[in-house]
Each structure stands twice: as structure tokens, then as C-alpha cells.
């Protein structure tokens, strides 16, 4: 394992320290926690937005803390949901009297820990509500399974629910728009090479030199199949078409596109994927409102990418465009 770290068991602490010292005028660390909050939290009268999850997805989640987006992010251990008490600290920190909204990615651990935090908060009379993001079309939704995973589409939920909260909306209104994003966002990922959890020290899975994994999750959990590596065009087609099969994007006005790197994919390659994604959408008569190419929701140093499409209406467009001062998402 070759990593630029100090102690594999201290990576989250060191990282949080590195984040808060990078943006001292924007962020503050809630003492003795792995919670980073807006410097001016709580904002009185505004719904507070909290998200978080395991670490290793940087810039998610603390990179999205800032005016117009999240009020706080909670960093768990690498790939491990934070504990209820940490989430509860975040909730208390951002509660400005209008309630707190949680953005949870759909993993058993995240759901359990955030729900328990919500119970703790309610016991202290803080209004809490939440949305569970499950944008990954790679894994089928059936009554059997845990449901779909939350991946890069979560960033759009942060942005749009964040803008809504910033506009002074109520907790119910923020929840409504959060659910609207979840209903209209779909993603799918793929990988060429695995990642290594620092404290584990060995790669989380193996792929042959000519193999790729289609439908990968952001912790290395696969979804669809392993097969021979294909061209960027074919990869873009496979991801995009699976998304388009799942939701009818032709009925919306426009879409937002995100081509997200999973950690060690050169940005050059993300743009090469985007090239074909844009062509496909054009061929299908789906018009693109805005495109995001870069690392938004990573899986440590996994090599691969995901494609996300969000169907927009006027409200979502306005909120997507609204100003954000979050370090990793400025608009």
C-alpha cells in the first residue's frame, strides 16, 4: 500500500484537520468530533442541512459545506458510516430553529446511524426530517434487496436542497425538493482498478488486466458484471443507456449531466467519456442544461467513473444555478 498518510488509523482525523485549516473562514470543526460545519452555523431561521457518511469519498462531504449547500458534514471512518452521536452533534450545531434536514445515502449503515441520530434529536425537540438517496441504477430495486445505493447523484441533492434551504424554505419544502431530486436522478459507475482502505492495507477487490467492473459502488461493491475492458465510447454508452432505460428523460425540459471520477481517473479520461455522453443525449433529443466533469464523489483511489443524469424542471434549474460557497462546488 503506497499512500501519503501518517497513521492508517488517523487518516480521518488528519484529513478533517487539513480541511478546516484549508478553509478557516468558511468551515469550523465541532470540538472533539469529526463534524465540519459552516463557520456561521447555526443560521437562525434557516433549515439546517446535514449530510455525511464514511470517509474516502472526498470532496464529499465536507467539501460541500458552505452557504447555499450543506450546513454540516459528518465524517465517519473510511467507508464506515459515522456514529449516531456524531450525527447528533452536527444536528445540534446547525439547528437554527427551523429544523434540520438530513441527506442520507442508501446504505444500511448510513440509514441506521442517521435514523438513530434523528431519534436522539427529536428527543431534544429538534425537528428532523430526511431523504434517502438511491440513484444507482446498477443494483436492482426489489423488495428483497436493501434497495439501490446512493452515489454521485447525492451531490445534486446537496446542491438543490441546500439552495432551497438557503432561500428560507421550510423543512417540509426542503424535503419536498430533496425528494424531487431523488425521483429524477439516476447514476451508474464502473471501475478499472480497485482502492485500498488505509487500515486494511490491501486492495478491496481484484480485476484482471483486461477486466472492468460495470455497476461498481463507491466502496467497491460491484453491481452488474465483470467483463472485458471496452473503449471509452462503449463505456459511456453502457452507463448512459442503462440510466435512460430506467427513467424517461425525454419528458423533462432539460438534464444536468455529471461525469464523476472515482479517484484516480485522469481528468482527460472523464472528458473523453463526456464526449460520448453528450453525443448520445444529442442523438436522443435530450437537451443538456449544465454539465459537471470532475471528482465529486470518489472512492479513495479507485480508477473508474460514474455518469449521473438529473431531469430538471424550472425549480430545479433555478436551485442548481443558485450561488454556492462550498469549497468543492462553487456556483
Amino acid at each position, binding site marked *: 500500500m503506497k499512500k501519503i498518510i501518517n497513521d492508517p488509523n488517523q487518516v480521518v482525523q488528519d484529513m478533517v484537520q487539513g480541511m478546516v485549516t484549508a478553509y478557516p473562514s468558511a468551515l469550523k470543526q465541532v470540538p472533539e468530533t469529526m463534524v465540519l460545519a459552516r463557520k456561521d452555523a447555526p443560521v437562525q431561521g434557516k433549515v439546517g442541512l446535514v449530510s455525511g457518511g464514511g470517509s474516502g469519498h472526498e470532496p464529499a462531504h465536507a467539501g460541500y459545506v458552505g452557504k447555499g449547500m450543506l450546513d454540516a458534514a459528518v465524517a465517519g471512518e473510511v467507508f464506515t458510516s459515522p456514529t449516531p452521536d456524531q450525527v447528533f452533534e452536527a444536528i445540534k450545531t446547525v439547528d437554527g430553529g427551523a429544523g434540520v434536514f438530513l441527506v442520507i445515502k442508501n446504505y444500511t449503515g448510513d440509514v441506521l446511524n442517521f435514523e438513530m441520530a434523528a431519534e436522539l434529536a427529536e428527543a431534544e425537540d429538534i425537528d428532523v426530517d430526511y431523504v434517502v438517496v438511491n440513484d444507482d441504477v446498477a*443494483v436492482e430495486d426489489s423488495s428483497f434487496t436493501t434497495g439501490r445505493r446512493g452515489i454521485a447523484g447525492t451531490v445534486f441533492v446537496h446542491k438543490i436542497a441546500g439552495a432551497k434551504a438557503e432561500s428560507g424554505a421550510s423543512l417540509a419544502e426542503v424535503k419536498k425538493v430533496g425528494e424531487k431530486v431523488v425521483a429524477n436522478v439516476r447514476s451508474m459507475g464502473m471501475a478499472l482498478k480497485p482502492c485500498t482502505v488505509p487500515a*486494511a492495507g490491501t486492495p478491496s477487490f481484484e480485476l484482471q488486466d483486461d477486466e472492468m467492473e460495470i455497476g461498481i459502488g463507491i*466502496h467497491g461493491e460491484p453491481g452488474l458484471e465483470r467483463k472485458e475492458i471496452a473503449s471509452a465510447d462503449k463505456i459511456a454508452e453502457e452507463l448512459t443507456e442503462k440510466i435512460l432505460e430506467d427513467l424517461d428523460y425525454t419528458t423533462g425540459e432539460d438534464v444536468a449531466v455529471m461525469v464523476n471520477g472515482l479517484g484516480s481517473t485522469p481528468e482527460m479520461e472523464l472528458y473523453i467519456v463526456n464526449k460520448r455522453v453528450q453525443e448520445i443525449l444529442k442523438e436522443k433529443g435530450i437537451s443538456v442544461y449544465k454539465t459537471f466533469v470532475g471528482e465529486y464523489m470518489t472512492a479513495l483511489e479507485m480508477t473508474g467513473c460514474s455518469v449521473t443524469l438529473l431531469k430538471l424542471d424550472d425549480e430545479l434549474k433555478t436551485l442548481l444555478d443558485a450561488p454556492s460557497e462550498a469549497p468543492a462546488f462553487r456556483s
Partner: protein
Amino acid sequence: MKLDVNTVIDWMKRTNEKMQENKSYLTTLDQPIGDGDHGINMARGFQEVENKISQGTYETPADVLKDVAMTLMSKVGGASGPLFGSAFLKLSTAVKGTDTVDGELFAKALDQAAAGVKQRGKADIGEKTMIDVWVPVAEALKEEPNFSAELLEDTAKQAMENTKEMLATKGRAAYFKERSQGHIDPGSASSFYLFEALSDVIKERA
């Protein structure tokens, strides 16, 4: 079998030893069908448990078990933190007010703990989770309240091994569908170590 406060403390210390020893093995189990952190989670959690309980003074088994529950909930995270936390909280509640827990009460407590995990995780037996160890162990003990250390260990071990061929439908392993078969469920393995540790402690005291 009789569990007094010191036996419970020893149980937890022995469990911690096992989690530290098997940290990489548990992580290795979590790599092919999960996200490769289970050993790290368990080792961190039970180390914190050991730190916590070696500082406190306890009157009853329930007191210890409660601190274990709270420590696991606040130090582990992931799926296993709240689930093991819930299990220990139920154990604690079930034996509240008793100085020495006998086999019958322990079996009852285990049953409630297993039910707690099911409820928290919205899962049931046969879904390739730790439930597939907790439930069979609870059932075996219910049938034989004077159970031996061997029975406890063998039941837990067999239950853990039975998860190998199961198809996961809950937790991260569910995403692997058919590919989840042929691998032991990591949470079932750590649950086995927990019961093996108890068996060890009972044997020593016998």
C-alpha cells in the same frame, strides 16, 4: 452456566482479544462481498469497549452490557455498530437487576437481542447477516438452558459456516447477488468470535 459481573467483563476482554487477532481475517471476509472494513470496525469497537470497562466499576452484568452497547454505538458506525449496539442494549435490558445470570435468563436475553437486531436491520434469518448466527444460538440455548460451553461454540460455528452458501439480500453483500455465495458473512464471523469468547470464559470458570 452462571454469568456474574466479572464473567461478563472477562467475556468482553476475551472478545476484544479475538477481534484484534482476527482483524485482518474479518476484513478479508468483508472485501469480496462488502467494503473491506468489518475487521477494522470490530477491532476499533471492542478496543474501545475494553478501554471503557477497564476504567469503570460495575455492580451487575447489566451495567457492563449497557456500557458495551453505548460504546459500540458511539465508536463503530457502519452497519455493525448500531446492530451490535442494539444487541447488547437488549441483553442489558433483559438481565437488568440480576447479579448472576443463569442459563435460562441468558437464553431469553439472547432471544431478545436477536429480535433487536432483526428489528433494527429490518432483516430476517436466511439473508446472510449476523442474524444467522444470533438466532440459531438463541434457539439452541432456549432448548437447553443448561447448555455447555461446547454447545454454544459449536452452534455459533456451524451457524457462521452455514452463511457461506446463503444468498445475501440485506446489507452490502446483497449487491453481489449470486456472487455473495461461497463467502462467509463477515458479521456472522465476528458474532461467532463473540460467542466463542463466551465459551472460552465459561470453560475457564468451570
